[in-house]
């Protein structure tokens, strides 16, 4: 695994606008993000010979459409639209998280199949409420959840938070500092959906409660839009326009919770620790080797559970770490410096990866962690499909 170390680089970042209810199609937004990533690297579509994504819709959310170009953008359709299907050598499309497609893209380059691959996440927010289980009957895994009202991910996360609060004596007030800091980080990020909208602690404490103790402000903000990252070999990246960010290593988790429940605190700990152990094995690094951490925040509690799972703090101390400001800009380990999915927008981990790249290439502007050499990005909740990445500054040549 260490044979991969620093051989693949991210050479370009591209974003479409991240908004709600845009008049443009998702396919159009995806094409814009891909073109932006290519332009960032000083390349054009002719260079691109691979595309990878996870094109799925969120599991719950209004009309669960699958219309190509509107609800989803598969790499096959995007290749046609970009006019690169004639020379595309590989398209990757996982059913897991987009960050697994990122790992596959890195392997496509390492193996020599591709020279330049764009990994993108295009996401559409369908109309309707997220809390909308309207089926008369529930089948399969849902038969154990939906009849009890346990059909929405915010309530799953709430059940994890409640156990954590009860075990360690925390309350929502302990997370307010982090939520406020995170929004402040977002305001320093030109891509952030909530830029220009700072929050106060009272805004968090008085936020609309969905599944106590999870409020609307503990959930990421669903957006229409796309982010794209251009991967190539480190050798090639050094000839391109931008200073590259090196992929030092990655790992994925395979720990599943018991099947009668969606997720548990105990299983998330085990899963995060498994992902971390595999990352240390892959990279030779450890929990104290990072200058900034981009930790998945589809739901806010995952941030402190990752801090614990990675071994940055012991179990039960992650929320205190955030409460005491150690995750703030200027703190011991600045966390989610671009605002994460809570502030920048739901892109299923692309915000974390893009921000890791930004930090180790000194592109963070007002939110830059001075001289950041290594960033860690973690995605998902630690259970099966979770991934982690070590991204490093290029100090070689």
């Amino acid at each position, binding site marked *: 695994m260490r044979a991969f170390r620093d051989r693949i680089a991210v050479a370009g970042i591209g974003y479409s606008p991240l908004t709600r209810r845009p008049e443009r199609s998702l396919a159009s937004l995806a094409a814009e993000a891909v073109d932006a990533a290519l332009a960032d690297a000083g390349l054009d579509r002719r260079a691109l010979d691979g595309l990878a994504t996870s094109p799925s819709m969120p599991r719950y959310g209004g009309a669960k459409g699958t219309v190509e170009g509107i609800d989803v953008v598969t790499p096959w359709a995007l290749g046609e639209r970009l006019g690169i299907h004639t020379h595309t050598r590989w398209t990757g499309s996982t059913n897991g998280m987009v960050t697994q497609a990122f790992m596959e893209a890195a392997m496509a380059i390492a193996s020599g199949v591709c020279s330049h691959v764009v990994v993108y996440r295009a996401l559409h927010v369908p109309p309707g409420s997220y*809390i*909308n*289980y*309207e*089926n*008369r*009957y*529930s*089948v*399969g*895994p*849902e*038969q*154990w*959840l*939906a*009849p*009890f*009202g*346990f*059909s*929405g991910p915010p*309530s799953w996360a*709430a*059940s*994890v*938070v*409640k*156990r954590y609060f*009860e*075990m360690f004596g925390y309350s929502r007030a302990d997370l307010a500092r982090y939520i406020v800091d995170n929004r402040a980080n977002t305001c320093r990020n030109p891509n952030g959906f909530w830029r220009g909208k700072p929050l106060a602690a009272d805004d968090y404490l008085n936020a609309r*409660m*969905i*599944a*106590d*103790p*999870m409020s609307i402000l503990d959930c990421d903000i669903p957006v229409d839009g796309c982010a794209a990252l251009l991967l190539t070999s480190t050798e090639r990246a050094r000839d391109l326009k931008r200073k590259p960010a090196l992929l030092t290593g990655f790992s994925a988790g395979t720990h599943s919770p*018991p*099947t*009668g*429940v*969606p997720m*548990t*605190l*105990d299983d998330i700990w085990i899963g995060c620790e498994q992902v971390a152990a595999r990352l240390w094995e892959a990279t030779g690094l450890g929990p104290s080797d990072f200058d900034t951490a981009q930790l998945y925040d589809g739901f806010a509690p995952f941030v402190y559970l990752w801090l614990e799972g990675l071994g940055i703090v012991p179990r039960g101390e992650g929320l205190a770490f955030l409460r005491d400001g150690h995750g703030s800009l200027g703190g011991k380990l600045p966390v989610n410096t671009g605002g994460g999915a809570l502030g920048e927008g739901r892109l299923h981990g692309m915000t974390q990866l893009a921000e890791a790249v930004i930090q180790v290439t000194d592109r963070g502007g007002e939110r830059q962690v001075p001289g950041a050499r290594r960033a860690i990005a973690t995605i998902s909740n630690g259970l099966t499909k979770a991934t982690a990445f070590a991204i490093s500054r290029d100090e070689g040549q």
Partner: protein
Amino acid sequence: MTVESEAVLRPLPLGDEVSEAFWDAAKAGRLDIQRCRACRRWNHAPSLACPTCGSEDLGYETVSGKGSLFTWCVLKEAPAPGFRDMLPLIVAIVELAEQPHLLLSTNIVGAREEELRLGMPLEVTFERVTEDCALPQFRPAREAA
């Protein structure tokens, strides 16, 4: 049709080959959980093969109905139209007494939110939703588990 029959219900479970024995038992007022005949581990949600030893020799056995509160949350918005009159709804995960980490998603009835404690003893009770469906629910245990 009467107004009552048109009322919007909570989503009903539709059993399958693996799970129908669970729902049939619930309808009869029993909590039956899948158990591996090879390694004797309890298994929920039921599956085609034992997740512990891989055996496909699985059956159902009636459990004590005793458990403890593993965690919970309180829904302030209806997760489906049929829950509109049930708010706030306590959704819970119960750890059944038979085996550590044998977890079941359910609701808590007969207790207020502020009475709930991690690990508090609970016992099963069945809520008949329709003529053909009863859901296992949990209430504070009447005697120490």
